[in-house]
């Protein structure tokens, strides 16, 4: 039954650089697709970095990347040329 349901192809992918994150939560709060959640585990500096709790919902908009004060996260669109062309 589960096989019949077409798995939605994720439109984007989010990448986290765990060790430079300071756990502010901006990315979690402002991701329009509610992809992220703060991890319960710590990074080396003692912060809780985000993890993709719902990776399939990510559309690669990179809003998380724009909000991050620590350059620790960014999203990329999948299935398109590398070019990053956010509408302004």
């Amino acid at each position, binding site marked *: 039954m589960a096989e019949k349901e077409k798995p939605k192809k994720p439109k984007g992918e989010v990448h986290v650089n765990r060790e430079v994150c300071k*756990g*502010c939560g901006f990315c979690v709060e402002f991701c329009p697709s509610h992809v992220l959640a703060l991890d319960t585990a710590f990074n080396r*500096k003692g*912060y809780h970095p985000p993890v993709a709790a719902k990776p399939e919902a990510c559309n690669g908009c*990179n809003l998380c990347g724009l909000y991050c*004060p620590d350059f620790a996260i*960014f999203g990329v669109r999948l299935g398109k040329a590398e070019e990053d062309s*956010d509408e*302004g």
Partner: protein
Amino acid sequence: MTQPRNPVEPFLRMDRMPHIWCPGCGIGVVVNCFARAMLESKTDIDSVQVVSGIGCTGRIAGYLRMDSYHTTHGRAIPFATGLKTARPDMKVVVFSGDGDLVAIGGNHLIHAARRNVDIKVICVNNFTYGMTGGQVAPTAPIESVATTSPFGVFEQPFNLAFLADSAGAVYVARWTTYHVRQLAKAMREVLQKPGFCFVEVIAPCPTIYQRRNRLGDALDAMRFYKQQSKLSEGADTRTLDIPMQGPIPVGRFVNRDRPTLLENMNTVLGKRLGAKFTPYPTGVTR
């Protein structure tokens, strides 16, 4: 499979990360938006020079991977004026905090705006002196608490947009760190615009300002900006005061054209000296 890189990395000194700013400090968001503006406008990294003064915001110069100068307290604008005069072909961007720019360097600010020096000033306004421990800043809202005013600030703060406008800036905007897209757009616009441009960014300082005023953490500040910002594009800048925890008027308020300092110099001296005068390059194409 190669790990994709954050697209803003080419504009940053990644070897210096993590940076010194506190968790959730808004300054990092401003840097991020600036890197994004550089990327989106395809601005050549070698055509931009960054100048900053002292304070938490003053540290920006050390994290941007372009020619950057960390100058003395309040003196980012005079340094930038000299730099722009010596190298009119360069885009010169000043990053400065409210205390550095408007108190210690306040006179430089108004005169650079008056003379229309072709520099772009990004002012990170967090209503306090972060690095030195939370003294009253010239932007501190009435009734906010600071280390040097434990019972509340009772001085009238500056409305920076009005100040920049009345001193003669050709571009004046205010956004908060919640408005990342608008902020990146404003930075793209000022990178293209000749003349003295002023962008104020309201930013959280969770460690000093938020904590002393019991306003929660940085995320609370961001939620507050989201709820309380009032889009006021083109508004009369006299109306743009920011009351303590009151609505924050945001938008682009001024966008006009005036000849720059170097253009004016060429006009006046050219008229007076005629053929004896060789016009100085202005870096402006109109």
